[in-house]
């Protein structure tokens, strides 16, 4: 029996009787981070890292929650657990599980590069690794992030000179804050969609500083946005909400923008390749550096990635989830039941 197995409720540690990021209600859940495909409502008890607490409260309301520091070990029925930084978003964690000397790591979503706001990824050593593989294809090769921020600021600046509103979509947890911290506010004002502004508020209230932002509200006039940048979740692109901005230049910040077809389908003017996930190189590097011999990819191109690993000599099997995980169009979310 494996230390961690895949069940119809999610990843499960039988000996400790806990689930990791389960998608159906369970008695006890360990949560890697606050995205809604990982932190689901309805569990009896939650455990996460301290810096994820405010985010989970914001998303899930008054839940029963235990929090830990990164690296702090807790034991359940002889199984040792600890959370470690995953670099994905604020409060994101990998989970290390040690049972009878065998070490497993569930990465959750992660990236190796330091985005300046999320706790930086920690490379763990383990025997078996359950890794995300959202961008597990060799065409995903991220551009240097400073270059991307520069491109975004240049684009905003050109738009501001023309009096055109700049409209950029980014997930409300993670990408939005990451971009906010790198916008050159000498160009103009930063406005945020309510979903992002509320998430920002929750993060600021938990004691993390963010650069200034304004919430888009009904009192604003179209003129207020002429030289502004508006940050919005991707879903707002197809809603009536966007109509308040006059002919904005529309950009999308996402790893999916690495492919031309994805950007064209979105109908966006600009695509910025900015992801909170590992690209192909990083995935391979993290796997090599973990020392693990058993690798279980989950999310994204699991089959292909697993076959690649098998050919490289790893013992590898894909793990299917009930979630799409991060997609181009939506915040990470549960798929609709048919």
């Amino acid at each position, binding site marked *: 029996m494996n230390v961690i197995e895949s069940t119809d409720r999610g990843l499960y540690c039988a000996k400790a009787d806990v689930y990791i990021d389960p998608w159906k209600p369970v008695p006890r859940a360990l949560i890697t981070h606050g995205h809604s495909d990982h932190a689901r409502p309805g569990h009896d008890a939650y455990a996460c890292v301290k810096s994820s607490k405010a985010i989970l409260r914001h998303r899930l309301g008054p839940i029963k929650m235990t929090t830990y520091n990164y690296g702090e070990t807790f034991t359940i029925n002889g199984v040792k657990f600890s959370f470690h930084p995953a670099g994905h978003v604020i409060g994101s964690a990998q989970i290390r599980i040690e049972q009878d000397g065998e070490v497993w790591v569930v990465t959750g979503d992660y990236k190796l590069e330091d985005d300046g706001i999320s706790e930086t990824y920690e490379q763990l050593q383990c025997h078996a690794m359950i890794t995300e593989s959202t961008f597990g294809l*060799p*065409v995903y090769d991220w551009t240097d992030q400073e270059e991307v921020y520069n491109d975004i600021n240049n684009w905003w600046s050109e738009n501001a000179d023309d009096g055109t509103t700049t409209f950029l979509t980014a997930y409300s947890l993670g990408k939005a804050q990451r971009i906010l911290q790198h916008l050159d506010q000498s160009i103009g004002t930063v406005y945020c969609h309510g979903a992002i502004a509320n998430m920002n508020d929750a993060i600021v209230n938990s004691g993390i500083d963010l650069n200034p932002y304004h919430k888009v509200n009904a009192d604003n006039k179209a003129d207020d946005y002429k030289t502004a940048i508006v940050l919005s979740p991707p879903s707002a692109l197809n809603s009536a909400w966007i109509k308040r901005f006059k002919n904005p230049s529309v950009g999308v910040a996402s790893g999916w923008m690495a492919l031309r*077809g994805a950007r*064209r389908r979105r109908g966006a*003017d600009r695509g910025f390749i900015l992801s909170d996930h590992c690209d192909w190189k990083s995935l391979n590097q993290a796997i090599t550096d973990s020392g693990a011999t058993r690798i279980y990819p989950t999310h994204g*191109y699991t089959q*292909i990635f697993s*076959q690649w690993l098998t050919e490289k000599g790893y013992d590898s099997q894909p793990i299917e989830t009930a979630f799409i995980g991060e997609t181009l169009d*939506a915040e990470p979310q549960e798929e609709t039941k*048919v």
Partner: protein
Amino acid sequence: MKHFTNLFLALDQTTKTTVKVQSLVDFFNAASDSDKVWAIALFTHRRPRRTVTTSLLREWAAEKAGIPLWLFEETYHVVGDLAETIAKVLPAKSTASTNRDLSEWIQYIMALKDKDEEDKKQQITEAWESLTADERFLFNKLITGGFRVGVSQKLVTKALAKYLDSHTTATSREENQIAHRLMGNWDPVTISFQDLILNEDPNDDLSRPYPFYLAYALEDSPQDLGEPDDWAAEWKWDGIRGQLIRREGQLFLWSRGEELVTDKYPELARLAEAVGPDFVIDGEILAYGDGMPLPFQALQKRIGRKTVSKKLMAEVPIIIMAYDLLEIGTHDIRDQSYEKRRDQLKGLISDLPLHHDILKLSELQAFDTWAELSSLRDTARERLTEGFMLKRKTGDYKVGRKKGDWWKWKVDPMTIDAVMIYAMRGHGRRANLYTDFTFAVWDGDRLVSFTKAYSGLTDAEFKELTSFVNKNTVERFGPVRSVTPVLVFEIAFKGINESKRHKSGVALRFPRIKRWRRDKLASEADTLANLKALLR
């Protein structure tokens, strides 16, 4: 390549027409004349002759990227574009180390023609290594073709007109004039910008066709078009659009895709010597026998063939069903009214009685009320037509797709309720969704697949289906999954024919998903007998 790459990125980074036109004008201002010609050629679907096969390109790219070929192929399937896949699996490079311009790179590629495989490989991989990812993508596109950058011929024409206008030394030209010059048989390898656009008297190419006037589909009832008396109605023929040109004793037939197809239809050749004035006729290439059109399927047998056997010509005779006249003698009459052009067309054809077996006039259907025409339209299918074309009697012959004077009023498609049994991951634009589905109908208690369909659903529905597929996969076959057969969809299609190649015994034309029948259980889907009843 810098100017062209910048142009490409600018075009690719906006959805706004005005910005696209301006980017093209900027390019025309900056680029050399030979680069201008090549850019125009590429945007109007002309490309250098292929000198390297795509299978070699794949092999070399996989090797250079250090990945196995199967992984390259899987990745290509997801990306959906070979040029892009190659450009991105290779290591990134931030600045190019060579400075060739567009036409020099094209020369470079054309020069590979007589090289052996080793030389080709060396030159191609050297090029890849010297270019940035964007430039590499364009370089690959020059080899593989298929530039889709959201630039229509119309946009290029507009930009050229604007460029010539702003340029002091160049002559101004009307957009229509430019559009006409860009049609037909010019070769970017040999033609100069001067000859293509500027010269007063271009080496008048006898084969040069006119841009087609394209109709919009009429979605609602024709009531809104006004008085029936202002309109002419002809059957909408189910063939392929063509322009038949006779000038100075030579005959040319162009398809709408701007392909010269004269040689595929040798029965028309004798029109070259027919008595009477020269002409340019707009009409339909139509398979026709016993006074009736043949099903489109018949014509398909001839479309693909370069050389045609006597047997095939006898089996599938074709005609030109003429519906408009654009040039008579040497006069361009496109600015005359439809009625006047029709009169001259009628006269021209009736003066060619010896050729009525290959050249027919598309007759006008008389009608007094729209209701009368509507009930006549109900017979369209049994006449093997697609419905009606409605044309304003006073309208001139326009360039490209324009609203107003020409409308296609098609019969409603046939439909059948079917069960989804296979799903395949989309590629390119829809890389992370399941978008290609196979559908089946009941044959007793067995489901028989009869068609694939992929268009017709919203993005939200595709997402929902992707979720369904993930949870209901029965078996995997590469990118294809079989799924639990529970979902029912209404499939609409334009035509149905018997087919020995398909398990179901039928083949559909233009199938698309009309809607998701959430109200139906799989057991309530149609049967094979229902489907076959639609065969005439």
